[in-house]
């Protein structure tokens, strides 16, 4: 089914595309070009003087062990958050896909957290996990677990991971549920007739058929964990204790907005931009192949 509208002349298509092109130009290309330019300079905070320094900022960045630590930490954080958020969402989706009473209610409740702002979800976690005011935090300390994420890096990491993953579960849930519903019943029935039991049926039939959804979600989750978790992390730990929860995005913000180191911060955002371009390219390539085949 190839439906194609053919325009005569060039004016109309250009006019129709113009709003989107302008938006992209002003909100993406312009700032991106500005970032690339700033990353090649050293300038004072007030932008009165600048010198062109070539790739010095990048050189400094990759010579800085703290930056590399932050990059490794970010990769670890992204993968953990993605796996955590996807596993929980998949489990919930499989259960919600069954014929059970009140299915609609479960589904709605599971989708709710998606509508909560990152900073608010952080506050919710504070109420639960803060060692002095949080319900669970106080309970842990009363029962002999020295829970204090202001000083314990691993605990802080665990907390920001849970808070970030919790917010993403709903999103994943929607997609997994839709994915599950689009699996033809006939295939499942056939497997059942052949005697495949619950887990085996899931492993050999359902999960493989879900793989396009899973792959799409993996990409989306990694991008979410890398970029959209800023609010959550900043509100919970501000990257601390030490640098134990400082991801690349937190570092860009700290260096650019708080420390006013425009050159280095721009260089970092250019690196991040390349990362996103890479991930998106991979996604397009694989997804494109799948739709073609």
């Amino acid at each position: 089914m190839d439906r194609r509208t053919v325009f005569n002349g060039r004016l109309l298509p250009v006019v129709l595309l113009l709003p989107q092109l302008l938006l992209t130009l002003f909100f993406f290309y312009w700032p991106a070009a500005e970032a690339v330019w700033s990353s090649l300079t050293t300038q004072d905070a007030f932008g009165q003087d600048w010198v062109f320094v070539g790739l010095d900022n990048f050189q400094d960045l990759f010579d800085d062990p703290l930056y590399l630590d932050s990059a490794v930490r970010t990769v670890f954080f992204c993968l953990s958050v993605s796996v955590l958020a996807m596993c929980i969402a998949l489990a919930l989706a499989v259960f919600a896909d069954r014929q059970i009473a009140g299915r609609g209610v479960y589904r709605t409740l599971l989708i709710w957290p998606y509508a909560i702002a990152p900073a608010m979800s952080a506050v919710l976690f504070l109420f639960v996990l803060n060692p002095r005011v949080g319900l669970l935090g106080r309970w842990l300390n009363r029962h002999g677990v020295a829970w204090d994420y202001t000083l314990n890096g691993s605990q802080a990491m665990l907390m920001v991971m849970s808070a970030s993953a919790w917010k993403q579960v709903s999103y994943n849930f929607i997609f997994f549920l839709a994915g599950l519903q689009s699996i033809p019943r006939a295939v499942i029935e056939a497997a059942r007739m052949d005697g495949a039991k619950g887990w085996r049926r899931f492993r050999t039939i359902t999960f493989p058929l879900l793989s396009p959804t899973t792959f799409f979600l993996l990409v989306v989750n990694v991008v979410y964990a890398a970029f959209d978790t800023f609010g959550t992390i900043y509100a919970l730990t501000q990257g601390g204790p030490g640098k134990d929860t400082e991801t690349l995005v937190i570092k860009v913000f700290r260096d650019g907005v708080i420390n006013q180191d425009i050159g280095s911060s721009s260089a970092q955002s250019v690196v991040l931009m390349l990362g996103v371009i890479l991930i998106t390219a991979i996604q397009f390539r694989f997804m494109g192949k799948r739709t073609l085949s």
Partner: protein
Amino acid sequence: MKRRTLLAAPFAVAATRARAVEKTRIVWWHAMTAALAEEIGRIAGGFNASQDQVEIQAIYKGGYADTLTATIAASRAGQAPHLVQVFEVGTGTMLAAGKAVKPIWELAKETGLAIDPKAYIPAVRGYYSLIDGRMASMPFNSSTAVMWYNKDAFRKAGLDPDKAPATWQEVRKAAETIKTKDAAPVAMTTSWPTWIQLEQYSALHNLPFATKSDGFDGLDAELVFNTKQHVKHIERLLEMSKDGSFKYAGRDTAPDPLIVSGEAAISFGSSSSRGNLVKSAKFDWGEAYLPFDPEITKKPENSIIGGASLWIMTAPDRNPGEYKAVAEFLKYIGKPEVDSTWSQNTGYVPVTFAGYELSKQQGYYTKNVGADIPVEQLARGSLTPNTKGLRLGRLPEIRNIIQEELEKALQGGQTAQQAMDVAVTRGNKVLREFAKAVRA
């Protein structure tokens, strides 16, 4: 163009008639919230009512860091406000801002504003002045660090509530007693770990925090807070943290609630917490001088300030009349009655001697025992190159670095010496980058 002028003329005349004099409008960005913001409003309103030439508009622009960022962005776009409140650690950045700012001494020369630096308390004035004594920004809200303690907890532990520990040895002993007698859930904590336990500690003991008079003498200053004396103090904190007599409770003001709620028996914090304690503390509390270590000095020097000052910003289309208006406003806030009211209502210290004297005459300090400790602590001794304050670029970043390394040491990941050494190395790198960017 001409036609438009002609058309506009009658309206202009009408407007002039309606308001005899067109007021000069100036904009002031500040970073104060809640009760402090109300006081800002009171000052702006008082100034507007005091004359009919100038109208000042005070606008809240977020916290200190946000306000500074907003100012920088506005300045880059040629839209800077006339006046902006910048925290003390932003002073190095502002001094390096060149034409974007107009230092007080330059404003005084251009507008004939009579400002006598000697009217300001030296520890306050020094922080915002060049090495030759010229004032760069206008002292406004200044605080310093003090020791707060819970007298009820002291009584419970069998300590004398009216005699606050004066030395670190005494503080440690008191904290240990409180801990063993279980007189309070937290024996000792500290707000602003870097400002109080390193910056103030250096000033009190006349130790350099950085070379070149703590950065006043040049951009090539280097951090030196990893000396034996500094490390000894950090070690003391680490040991106390291990045996439970000191509880690290986070950065900046995060630990403040511990003393106000009565959970902590001893805490170090900003003198501007007084208002909060008066309002919320349901126990008998006391304010005391920061402790010192007699093994390093017998006579502690003055402490250094925190808080913020007012900077005058430039913009491409700004006319001399506007600067004149700014000068009028600065003259107004320097008046003893404005200064003392602001100080009494907020808990900040008076920045002028006259303001301090006026509060004394009004009996404010006899009615509020201990409220004069911050001023006395700031004004004692004679300023040395180590007690004028810090003149270092990107100081907020350096504070973060120190806190990160300190937290690592508190987790047991490194010794006090290692923590200070690493912080000095990392901090010096930041200073080099700042110097490079400023010289660019």
